[in-house]
């Protein structure tokens, strides 16, 4: 077991599973990634995208079908999980139900045969870090979900692993607790300064926690980048869809001027940024509802339509705007707008992302 490292290298890590009809499919297809010490990486994608498979491969809970995993110069993908010494936080906590909080947290230290004189203060520190002092003698069953998750985090970090793996640790918590625990995970990560790989399907979690986000789909990496990059410049339409670009319109390409593309439909004419080389005369346009504003008629990138539905969101409202020919746009607009209102909406050129049509 290594106590520290400068980089974790995944080299074309592949995992096949037997699919329907005995045909093997790649749950994880040639994942290549280098994680630096202290970095917080989020693996983001819809369920079935291979993100948990990747995490289990790193943890040693799944064997690889191909590729290798290296910790600096040490090849670790052939080691069993107990020899890798990573800390892992499971989605359903996986606390040992027959052990007190204290014994759960101390488990990894006992497995490392540390003297009890050393275990006790380290468990104490971990309890303090996750703010569970005073709960040490309870059984996991006597704790709330949020507390259980904090015990699971404490149990994983108390052994001071070089790498912490988290598998959707917040998905079983309610909305309020999720945001609190999220902040706590960020704080703990800062304090420990260890690399963390965090699996989630929630883009907000990934954006708020990670230094770099790995967006995955169908076992393959779609994009690796810092949160603003993935948020603002999705590499392809799949990433854009996943990052909240709810408006995807397929339109005709009308003209090209460097990176700027003009696209047009029956009653929609837009100019946007080309994100990928275009093929053919059709293109897909991705726009976030937040980036469309209700405006005065006239001017570039303005679309006229009628409000078909209003969802009140407090600060603003989510509007469904339908053009004369029936194109639907999701728009965030002021709460003053009513259903059946005729409106004009506009979107800045830089925020119209143009991808090849599917």
């Amino acid at each position, binding site marked *: 077991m290594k106590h520290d490292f400068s980089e974790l290298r995944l080299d074309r890590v592949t995992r096949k599973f037997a699919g329907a009809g005995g045909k093997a499919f790649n749950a994880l297809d040639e994942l290549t990634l280098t994680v630096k010490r202290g970095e917080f990486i989020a693996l983001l994608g819809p369920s079935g995208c291979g993100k948990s498979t990747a995490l289990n491969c790193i943890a040693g809970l799944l064997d690889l079908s191909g590729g290798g995993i290296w910790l600096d110069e040490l090849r670790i993908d052939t080691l069993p999980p107990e020899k890798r010494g990573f800390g892992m936080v499971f989605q359903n*906590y996986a606390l*040992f139900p027959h052990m007190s909080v204290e014994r759960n947290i101390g*488990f990894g230290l006992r497995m*490392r045969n540390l003297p009890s004189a050393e275990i006790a203060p380290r468990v104490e520190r971990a309890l303090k870090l996750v703010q569970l002092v005073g709960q040490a003698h309870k059984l996991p069953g006597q704790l709330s979900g949020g507390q259980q998750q904090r015990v699971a985090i404490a149990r994983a970090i108390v052994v001071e692993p070089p790498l912490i*793996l988290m598998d959707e640790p917040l998905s*079983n918590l309610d909305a309020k607790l999720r945001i609190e625990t999220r902040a706590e995970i960020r704080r703990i990560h800062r304090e420990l300064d260890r690399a963390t790989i965090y699996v989630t399907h929630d883009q907000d979690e990934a954006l708020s926690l990670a230094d770099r986000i790995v967006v995955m789909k169908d076992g393959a990496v779609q994009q690796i980048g810092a949160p603003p990059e993935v948020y603002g410049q999705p590499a392809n339409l799949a990433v854009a869809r996943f990052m909240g670009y709810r408006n995807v319109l397929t339109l005709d390409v009308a003209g090209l001027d460097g990176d700027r593309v003009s696209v047009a439909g029956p009653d929609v004419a837009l100019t946007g940024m080309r994100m990928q080389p275009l093929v053919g005369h059709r293109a897909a346009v991705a726009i976030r509802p937040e980036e469309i504003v209700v405006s005065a008629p006239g001017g570039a990138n303005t679309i006229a339509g009628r409000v078909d539905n209003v969802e009140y969101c407090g600060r603003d409202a989510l509007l469904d705007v339908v053009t004369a020919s029936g194109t639907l746009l999701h728009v965030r607009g002021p709460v003053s707008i009513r259903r059946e209102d005729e409106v004009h909406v506009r979107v800045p050129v830089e925020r119209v992302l143009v991808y090849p049509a599917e």
Partner: protein
Amino acid sequence: MSAAAADTIARARFDRALLLVVPAAAFMLILFVYPFLYGLWLSFQPKEGGWLANYLHFFTTDNLYPTIWITLKLALPATLINVGLALPIAYAMRRKSRYQRIVTTILVVPITLGTVLIAEGMLLYFGPKGWLSHFLQLVHLYDGPIRLTHNYWGVLISLVISGFPFAFLLILSYMTGIDPVLARAAATLGADPRAQFRHIYLPLLAPGLAMCFCLAFVQAFSVFPSAVLLGSPAGPTRVISIAAYEAAFEQYDYSLASAIAMIMGFVQLIIVAAVLGLRNLFYRGPVSGGKG
């Protein structure tokens, strides 16, 4: 609140599904509680002497009171062997695999054979002129006579053969009920499969093992056919059920036979109570590690 209103509430709360318990309860009353109480009453009605005469007779007669010890000497080792063997095999079979089904099937087949069939097979196989003896002599591994039937060992082997599948199935079902993610969590914390067994599986299985031990023990303690067919029912395998049988159907002393049956039940009760008492020392809660 008026009495009538309270009555309607009580009536509304009565769950008619509870009526489904009636057949089982009637079954228990007619086939267990009544015969038991009748036997208990009968055991205090000896042919001659005071109301405790049967019990006094049992504990002072040379071919009666030792049967308790003889039966325990068969039932306890057989139970320990069965539970002890089933535990590691069930641990090895805990993950679903293509072998799990085959191995489980092979191990469970003996449960479908009657004791008599097993005895028949054992006589053929383990007997002095059986295949095992022939084989050992053929390869000159052991040339002396092998005595594995018509003695203590014959009965013990038969109890293991017929009792093992039962213990195995029971433990396997407890084992597969333990969330495998717990073992994985333990592995990431540095526990090898041995340590996972010791620190995770064993403590969580303990109550189930106690239960399995009790059931297997009660089954072994009431051994009868194999003690007659494979043992020496006059000597070292004269188990307590043989004594009861002889009293009832050879001496036609139903009262004495009832007393022996009561003693038999009492011994079983002591062992079961002791084991279940031990069970309370262990954790007995849910065996999953959080929200599912």
